[in-house]
């Protein structure tokens, strides 16, 4: 797996989770949210978010529509579909499993590995 694939995958998962928690949101909102939650740990160019959104939409995990936001700006709002929700659940589960395994592995002492 190429590095970009990993980053895109992670980013996609974050987008799904964000939309799951906050409901319909525009691109900038999603970017802000991810930035806040990850505490600037994930220093990505915000621009890279858009190809990810496109991919998710092509895959049918999210839909988009144009709407007016606060102060009457026209913006494109992204929304989670049922399939996207299922995907999020599945990926969250597999992420947890992976995390648990990695955690246990790092917690292991030298003698455990012998």
């Amino acid at each position, binding site marked *: 797996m190429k590095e970009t694939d990993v980053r895109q995958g992670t980013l996609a998962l974050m987008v799904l989770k964000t939309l799951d928690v906050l409901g319909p949101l525009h691109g900038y909102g999603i970017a802000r949210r991810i930035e806040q939650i990850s505490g600037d740990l994930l220093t990505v160019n915000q*621009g890279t978010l*858009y190809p990810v959104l496109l991919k998710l939409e*092509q*895959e049918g995990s999210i839909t988009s529509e144009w709407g007016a936001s606060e102060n009457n*700006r026209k*913006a494109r709002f992204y929304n989670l579909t049922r399939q996207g929700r299922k995907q999020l659940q599945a990926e969250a589960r597999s992420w947890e499993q992976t995390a648990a395994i990695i955690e246990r592995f790092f917690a292991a002492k030298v003698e455990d590995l012998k």
Partner: protein
Amino acid sequence: MKALRRFFRRLTSWTTSARDEEILRTEIDDHIARQTADNLRAGMTAIEARRQALLKFGNVEATKEIYRDQRRLPFMETLLRDMRHAVRRLRRTPAFTAAVLLTLALGIGANTAIFGVIDSILLRPLAYPDAEALVGIWHTAPAAPRGISSSSPSMYFTYREENRTFQQFGLWNSGGAGVTGVAEPELVRALFVTHGVLDALDVKPLLGRWFSAADDTPGSPETVILTYGYWQRQFGGDRSILGRAMTINASPRTVIGVMPEAFRFQRDPELILPARFDRNTVNLGTFAYQGIARLKSGVTITQANADLGRMLEIWMRSWPPPPGFDSAAFRNARYGPRIQPLKQDVVGDVGTALWVVMGTLGLVLLIACANVANLFLVRSEARRQELAIRAALGAGWRRITQEMLVECMTLGVLGGALGVGLAYAALRILVANGPDTLPRLNEIRVDPSVLAFALGLSLLSGALFGLIPVFKYARARVGATLGGASRTIGPSREHHRARNTLVAVQVALALVLLVGSGLMIRTFQQLRSVRPGFTDPATIQYVHSSIPVAIAKESARVMRMWEEMRDKLAALPGVTSVGFASQAPLESILGFRNMQFLYAEDKPLQAGQVPRGPEHRFIAPGFFRTIGTRLIVGRDFTWTEVYEQRHVAIVSENLAREWWNDPRAALGKRVRERPTAAWREVVGVVENVYDYGMHVKAPEFAYLPALMDRVTRVGVFAIRSDRAGTEGLLKEVQQTIWSVNGRQPLFFVNTLETLYDRSMAQTSFTLVILAIAGGMALLIGIVGIYGVIAYVVSQRTREIGIRIALGAQSAGLLRVFVRQGLLLAGAGVALGLAAAAGLTQLMSSLLFGVTAVDPLTYAVVSALLLVVSVLASYLPARRAMVIEPVHALRGE
């Protein structure tokens, strides 16, 4: 699933691209505006706020780029663009494009056509439901000609009753049936079948029914089934035909069915008649029928063979030998089972020739591809600078490769499309005029598998001739080419190597094809030089007729009528002489054989020994003289001998040698055709007649007088005349025969030459194809050598100019170039000789009187190629000699 959905979204989204672009821009603008606003709220200055927003977003253009790539399928887009470019570039060089397209169209078209033939004849299942389960029933019999034997009526009863593996089973044979009272009297092709044959084929009749067991039983009403073509031709497709009576072979029969249009059978029958065997009179003998069966589902041919072997034991025990025979003779014939797919029965041995032709045309296509690759190399040479500049500007190796390949594939597909058109036309012509020796001819057509083959072939050829220039030039070294050095120093030796290799390969392949056609020419010569047992076949006209019982009952009366007709025919203007016989030379290849036993008085059979089985012919005096068959010793029959039914016989030379070692010793010896018949004195020995075709050993013959205890009711006149084959002669012959014989049908009207040519049809067909292929290969090979030398000369113009200026002799310079061409050809010839020695083994079954490694053919072909190569390199080399040194130098 997700990936698939995404793929289709991307595939279908290139139409809306301008609007999508707009949306993306709006969205990005919105994003940056929001960030700027937030930054302002955080207290930045207006300029700083926007700068930070842009920084945070990252490279806008790069984002758009990624976004675009993701939205659509960039590969497809470039592909389409490359194709457009390719077409545009090809249109700019019409001569080049036309040359390539024509070469490819011929190569691909020829291969597609022959694949269509092979597909229709060899690959596709027969036109019956579930045709894989259909088998032909044969027997191995070491003593029989070709080692295989057909079936006898007694086998019909045994196999029907005892088999465990057949779902349906029956016997059939084919022949003529005289139909009178419908239109002009005519002899039509009839198929005689027992109950079970049509059931096995499982083609339901269009009208009426199949034969039942009752139709087979002697004494029941006589019936007939029409095929679709005959029904249309003679009855105009009248649907009330069932139950109507027809007069066939002078007796009435009731029409009980009509077969559908799609029904096909061997020898293309017009009428189907029941074959009737009387259980009470059949014996082990009369192997005149072919067996056909539908195997029970799941039964293999091996299992069926085991079953047949078991039944042969039962058969041998169950039936008496023919009168006068010893049943030990049948045991010693060692009959064994030999079941084969019905397709093999139908297709016969035409497979080898077709595969050889396919291989041949495949080689031609290879040569064509090599040539096109060479043309592309020259073109790429011209584009080297351009490619190098593009590489320097950052075009990736893959990008350039793709572009070049797309251009070649486009050419390949265009050429292939033209080729399919050619193939379609060629097949139409073949079906309309094809030799009727080709089985399943009317089933030949272009179907999806043929089209798929053509497409595959086109892409493959495109890739084949595309990859060579790609490997040469796509990785062009930027520095070396851009340095401008190429203008003064010629192209590197490495570039020549690719072109030289291609030319050598072309020469090698051309040699293989020329050797193949050379071998076929030699075979044809050998066949032509066989003394066939007759002379000047172009001036011999065969006409068959018959005298049914209804017209003349007594044997002597029938014979008088034949003689009267013969005398009247001989009196026709332009007719030199006329002979009469039961069957004339080479009619065997139409499927008529009459092999019977013959016994010699002084060669008593050992117990269980199988008697000799020569071909029997019943002839009238003068037949040999008309045909041109030489009498070696003794004399012809006389009319007195015929009418007095004297016991005389004439035998062929090979039979006489086999029995008595010397034709002269045969005179006065006594033979008979049945163990119960009277002994006949041998009064003459005639030369061998190659009755089965020139490439087959001449069969042994026994000639007996045309009037014996029975008379020859169906016979052939052989008319020697310069007008043979003309409409006028045939009209007169018909009038003459009808003046004696009522209105009996004339049939099997052929000149002997037609049959003679037909006996060599396979050889001449293969010869013509190979000669065309060889000619094309030679031509392309010459063009290849010419091209290389001409190119080298043009590249070295400057060098030549300097040399001439320094005093080089033009003869010496000529030698340099000619030697180079000769070297190429020599390498190709060496390669080709090795390849030919291997590949021609595959066609050894098509050869006659010459081996696959015939030294003469190899030597002549090699010499021809070398001479032609010298010529092909001399012509362009001569151009170099007239170069003015000053011009060459200034040309820089």
